[in-house]
């Protein structure tokens, strides 16, 4: 595979997303392209700054809420990697989120393990293992699986896990596992509040940067190509199914990390966490924010959760209806999500190699 990557590295950036850009190339000078490229870091900076300042400005109970939102943003990131970058519709992302949550809850309940350096890696591993099993089964094999099969397969997996969790006494049945001991570091215990918030934010930033590095690498470019035109990437000699399985597993690991944080933050886990409800919730975040941009997933989670928190006090009954309508409008008219109002098409796809103006120009003029 690495050999193939080297061979096509020149061709890939020019091909991906190229068709749409070529149409605009006449009116849009290379300089303009260079200037639009700067928007993404600005957006990311603003979001980070807002996130850093939030606990200072918010009341205590809102900081707790904000922590939950940050964890869900991490979860959204995992779905965005899988759908936004590789075009795998994972309708069962909650399976990895929730099973990691259950896993760490069991560690805390039965083995009294709450050390942060043990539970978070354990949760991540659980997510990774489940994703590897499910993704390996659904994606790999002699015949490539259809998109429909993969999306319905993940959905079914999540639904089956939900039913299993509801009916299994060991996992607490309908009630789930309540009052999980707080996560600890030596004698310090992470309880809800600013400390937990900054811990989660720190983790989100680290994971975000790792993901950003990943999707801007050659691997990420191959993924973006996969999303845009799977067949073409296959013809380049990539093992498409392997690429998909790898990113699916990574996504599962991130979801597992988010799930274990969520379990300790809320202090309990319940069957919905592995089920279809949470699975579709994360799809909503990413579609709203904008799939295929990592920051879009984060923004989507913040907006959906924020607005629903704000509206559900006064308009509890009609909020889900509004959510559905907005989602429909976004799908119909803004398929790239809200982020596409500020972010150009070009920035969704990673960049590769030296990106001087001449370089860009030369590539665009290539036939």
């Amino acid at each position, binding site marked *: 595979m690495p050999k193939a990557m080297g061979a096509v590295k020149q061709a890939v950036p020019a091909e991906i997303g190229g068709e749409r850009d070529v149409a605009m190339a006449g009116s849009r000078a290379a300089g303009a392209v260079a200037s639009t490229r700067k928007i993404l870091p600005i957006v990311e900076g603003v979001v980070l700054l807002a996130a850093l300042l939030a606990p200072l400005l918010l009341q205590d109970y809102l900081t707790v809420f904000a922590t939950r939102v940050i964890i869900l943003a991490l979860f959204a990131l995992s779905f965005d990697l899988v759908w936004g970058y590789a075009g795998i519709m994972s309708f069962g992302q909650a399976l990895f989120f929730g099973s990691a949550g259950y896993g760490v809850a069991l560690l805390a309940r039965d083995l009294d393990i709450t050390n942060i350096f043990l539970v978070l890696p354990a949760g991540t591993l659980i997510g990774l293992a489940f994703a590897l099993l499910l993704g390996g*089964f659904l994606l790999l094999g002699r015949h490539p*699986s259809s998109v429909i099969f993969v999306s319905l397969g993940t*959905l*079914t997996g999540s639904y089956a896990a939900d039913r299993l969790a509801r009916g299994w006494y060991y996992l607490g049945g309908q009630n789930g596992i309540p009052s999980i001991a707080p996560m600890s570091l030596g004698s310090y215990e992470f309880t809800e509040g600013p400390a937990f918030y900054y811990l989660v934010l720190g983790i989100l930033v680290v994971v975000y940067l790792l993901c950003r590095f990943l999707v801007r690498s050659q691997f990420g470019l191959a993924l973006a190509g996969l999303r845009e035109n799977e067949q073409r990437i296959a013809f380049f000699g990539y093992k498409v199914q392997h690429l998909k399985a790898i990113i699916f597993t990574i996504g599962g690991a991130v979801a597992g990390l988010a799930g274990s944080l969520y379990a300790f933050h809320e202090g309990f886990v319940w069957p919905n966490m592995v089920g*279809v409800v949470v699975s579709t919730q994360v799809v909503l975040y990413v579609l709203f924010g904008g799939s295929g941009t990592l920051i879009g997933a984060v923004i989507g989670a913040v907006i959906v959760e924020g607005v629903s928190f704000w509206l559900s006090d006064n308009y509890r009954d*009609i909020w889900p209806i509004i959510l559905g309508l907005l989602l429909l409008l976004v*799908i119909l008219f803004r398929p790239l999500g809200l982020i596409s109002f500020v972010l150009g098409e070009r920035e969704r796809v990673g960049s590769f190699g030296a990106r001087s103006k001449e370089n860009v120009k030369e590539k665009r003029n290539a036939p």
Partner: protein
Amino acid sequence: MANAFVAAFEILSFGAIIVLIVLGLGIIASMMGIFNFAQGEFVLLGAYITYLAYAKGLPIWTGMVAAPFVVGGLGFVLEALIIRRFYAAPIVAMLGTYALGLIIRESVRGLIGGFYLTVPEPIGGSIDIGAMHISAWRFTIIVITLLVMAGCYLLLSRTSFGLRMRATLENPSLARASGISTPLMYGATFAFGSALAGLAGALIVPVFSLYADLGLRFLIQGFVAVMVGGVGSFIGPVAGAGVIGTLSAALPWIMAPVVADVLVFVLAIVFIKFRPQGLIAGKGV
């Protein structure tokens, strides 16, 4: 002996219910290539209309007759306004219909609240065969399911409407060239599938009572049944629904219900993985 008979009846009646629900889902999936996530909510709407008729003091069967027409009409309108834009992209269609379903489901939830509302059976009582009693309404559902199945089959295989529908499915451009209005056919197919869902909802509401997540409960089972049966024909999803419905109802008799529940899904997914074309491959009726 009596027990075995009652068990067999239960299994058959649940199988019939699943077949009834999957009929519409299967027709839309096979003929149009769209996995309609709003199908569960069409079932819910059918149930709700029946409940409305009952609540207004009308005979229940009026609601049951009205449900398929109202839901079918709604399906036709939705197809023309929204679904039509999704044909090129199956995944986007899933998301779009999911959004539609969310809107319908939450609207109904707003209307009925978080309650379980019961609707009495229009044909109450039980049929007694010797010492055994079976529910008359469940028996009626089985009969109606058989009739609807036969009706759909005849419609698709014997009428010119069915012929045009299949032509549109198999080769849209040739169908257009032959003077068939494919957009109209898609609209009609979607409306037909929705109407079947409405009918299913109307018939099952006395058995399961009305609550907002009624449709969701059957949706995933329905999708799995369609995949197991095979997308592309009318008979495929029906066969899949028979298998899934029978298995879901039969397995809990021989093992713990939780295990049975999950096992059905696992078996189904494994089956589809190794036989992607489903039980009955091929296009047509």
